[in-house]
């Protein structure tokens, strides 16, 4: 019986004018574009310089700014006000004001005051940008201090080159799984409700389990396919391969798929219209994503928000998949995330089956 129902689902997916294209294009698009744009590195900060000194020293600072990867030299401005005006128009991000006699003061061993003004509308950009800039200035003013700083050694573990892509790709994997196994089956069931064919199925001897599995198995298989495409693309385009065992990545993805598809089924059991289903799913998905550490570190959330990560399957998944991907951890280092995912997923699955009613 299940065989016939699954064949029907595949036929319907194939006949759908839109779905097969989406399934194929989605991982490709996400993989080709997102790692470049979902990027929190601070780069290309435009710096205006007001050089009141015009000495060799000040020129050296300007050259260092020009040479830096992080900055774009916005130009020399005659006055602080003129430079600020450019910030207000969004043409520049920072202003560096070098005072009169800057070079002379340094030579005399005094401590000249340099002003750095940063547009902190984007806090990260403003903060990190001004830190970089003051580093450059310091190295010119006090070479000894800079030399001392370089004595402090920072050892970057695992992601040695601080490659942000390596950090984001596991997160994108989570998004793909969510879309393929959370949204698609939900919309499929609700559309059967809207058309009325579900009533026909409900008066047949199809068991609850058979019906639900027939809706999930096709999308699980699709998710499996999409994940594979995804991993191949990560290797082809970015040369990124998981450091840990690849089967663990699949296990984690399938556990997450179990959660999201159960969640989708629960929503579809309680919704009568497409609009309702989409909205409710989207609402919860946003919360789950934002509180999961997908984009931001969970530790920096307020404690009440951090507490929710204990029931958020996405945050277990992200933690575990990053461990496998980046640190090369095996099952022994992620077993407790696996158990948590299994636990949350099972609860949701039971709820999904219980809330589907063939007879009310």
């Amino acid at each position, binding site marked *: *019986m299940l*065989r*016939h*129902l699954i*064949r*029907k689902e595949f*036929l*319907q997916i194939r*006949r*759908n004018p839109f779905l097969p294209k989406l399934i194929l294009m989605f991982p490709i698009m996400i993989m080709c574009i997102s790692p470049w744009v979902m990027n929190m590195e601070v780069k290309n900060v435009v710096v205006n310089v007001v050089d009141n000194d015009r000495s060799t020293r000040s020129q050296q600072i300007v050259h260092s700014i020009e040479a830096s990867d992080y900055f774009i030299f916005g130009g020399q401005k005659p006055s602080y006000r003129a430079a600020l005006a450019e910030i207000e128009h969004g043409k520049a991000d920072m202003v560096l004001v070098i005072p009169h006699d800057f070079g002379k003061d340094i030579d005399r061993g005094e401590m000249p005051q340099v002003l750095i003004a940063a547009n902190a509308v984007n806090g990260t950009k403003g903060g990190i940008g001004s830190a970089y800039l003051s580093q450059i200035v310091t190295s010119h003013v006090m070479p000894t201090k800079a030399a001392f700083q370089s004595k402090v050694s920072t050892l970057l573990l695992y992601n040695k080159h601080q490659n942000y892509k390596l950090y984001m790709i596991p997160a994108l994997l989570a998004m793909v799984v969510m879309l393929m196994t959370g949204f698609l089956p939900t919309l499929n069931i609700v559309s059967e409700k809207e*058309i*009325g*064919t579900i*009533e*026909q*199925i*409900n*008066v*047949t*001897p*199809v*068991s609850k389990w058979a019906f639900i599995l027939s809706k999930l198995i096709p999308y699980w298989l699709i998710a499996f396919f999409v994940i594979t495409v995804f991993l191949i693309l990560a290797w082809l385009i970015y040369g990124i391969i998981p450091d840990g065992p690849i089967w663990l990545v699949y296990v984690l993805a399938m556990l997450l798929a179990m959660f999201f598809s159960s969640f989708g089924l629960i929503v579809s059991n309680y919704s009568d219209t497409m609009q309702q289903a989409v909205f409710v799913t989207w609402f919860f998905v946003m919360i789950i994503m934002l509180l999961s550490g997908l984009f931001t570190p969970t530790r920096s959330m307020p404690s009440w928000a951090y507490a929710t990560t204990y029931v958020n399957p996405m945050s277990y998944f992200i933690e575990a998949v990053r461990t496998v991907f980046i640190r090369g951890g095996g099952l022994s280092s992620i077993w407790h995330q696996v158990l948590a995912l299994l636990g949350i997923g099972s609860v949701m699955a039971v709820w999904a089956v219980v809330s589907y009613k*063939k*007879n*009310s």
Partner: protein
Amino acid sequence: MNAIEVNNVSKSYGTVKALDDVSFTVGKGEVFGLIGPDGAGKTSMYRILCTLLLADSGTVAVDGFDAVRQMTDIRRRVGYMPGKFSLYEDLTVEENLQFFATLFGTTVEEGYDSIKAIYGQIERFKNRRAGALSGGMKQKLALSCALVHSPSVLFLDEPTTGVDPVSRKEFWDMLGTLKDRGITIVASTPYLDEVRRCERVAFLNQGKIRGIGTPDEILTRFADIFNPPGIDHAQGGEVKNENVIEVEHLVKAFGSFHAVDDISFTVKRGEIFGFLGANGAGKTTAMHMLTGLNQPTSGTGRVVGYDIRTEHEQIKKHIGYMSQRFSLYEDLTVAENIRLFGGIYGMDDKEIARKTDEMLERLQFADHKDTLVASLPLGWKQKLAFSVSIFHEPGVVFLDEPTGGVDPATRRQFWELIYEAAGRGITVFVTTHYMDEAEYCDRISIMVDGKIKAMGTPDELKQKYNQPDMDHVFTYLARQATRSSD
């Protein structure tokens, strides 16, 4: 001056010719019927008349305005009631009316005189959501919405499909009063009694006008389509003295509302049992309990020997069901649908393949085995849905308004299939709004306000209530209803 002039209009969708050189005129204040089978091109014609669709060739003038150049003038003057959707189910009665008034730049107060006669009947429920209205009331509201801007021409595309006979009569009485006010009406309908209430009708088939004339002229000229000879009742199967459905004191309550209010009846094996009632009388709710979709609030029932409360999953193995909302998958082919439902009932692949060929052969439908269901005409879909619902040889088949919206000839073919099934020993439990179909049943019950008001053979009922035909019996009983108007 003619209210509508259509000259040599043609319209194609790809290779399909929906309208082919259609010409007709409608006089001012006339009630004009546009009739024909499903897929004849009626809806395309309405859409062209309402300036929603551009004809490929030919000219159309409505109320003296050209449908291409002066479409805003036309849109201000016409009211259109499309077949399926014209109300917002989540808005209340009053909100719906206000919305349509606003669309035409008028207000309910301004247009009140033109809708008073109709809207007055439903004004008491103005705070009820349109989705919660019965079929007849929805129709009155839809008509009010189409009339609120005082149009001079009214287009009604099968407005009464799925509506019970009493509400239909009231609806056409209202159209009569509109005619008295000089409003031109163009309407289409699959019901013969409604065709007879038009002054002139045009018969459209496969995109061509086959004839225009008075209803009687057209109905006699195309009698093979509109007036097929009745089916010999003896074709039905032998009724055995064995109860397939037994229901005692069945109640289904939603809060304080008793949708089904204490009904008891039995249906015997091989019988064709007609389950009649006005919209909202509780037929579908009762059927949902019998087919194991809903639990009864109280009372007992057994279907093919199983309890409807506890053994509903057993019942589902032994019944077939065809709902009024179309029940095959449109994006699967004919053969794929059959295979799916055969598989669901646990038939093996060989048996399915053999029976599929046999069934399609019998329906003379073998050529369309691999056609998508979505592209079949409505009449064929219905025949196919019925054949699929009895594919696994169930003990009983439940049919919920199986023949809505198709012409008499197609309905007759459908009933031949029902008789064939009954001849094979399948009990048929059917609801319908066509009273000629009621006459085809072995026994019928008529539900009014959740209760069974009458039960017996069609002849017994006609005699008992001293009425000439089932239509009159039904009208007589259904007019006693208090609920549909409370």
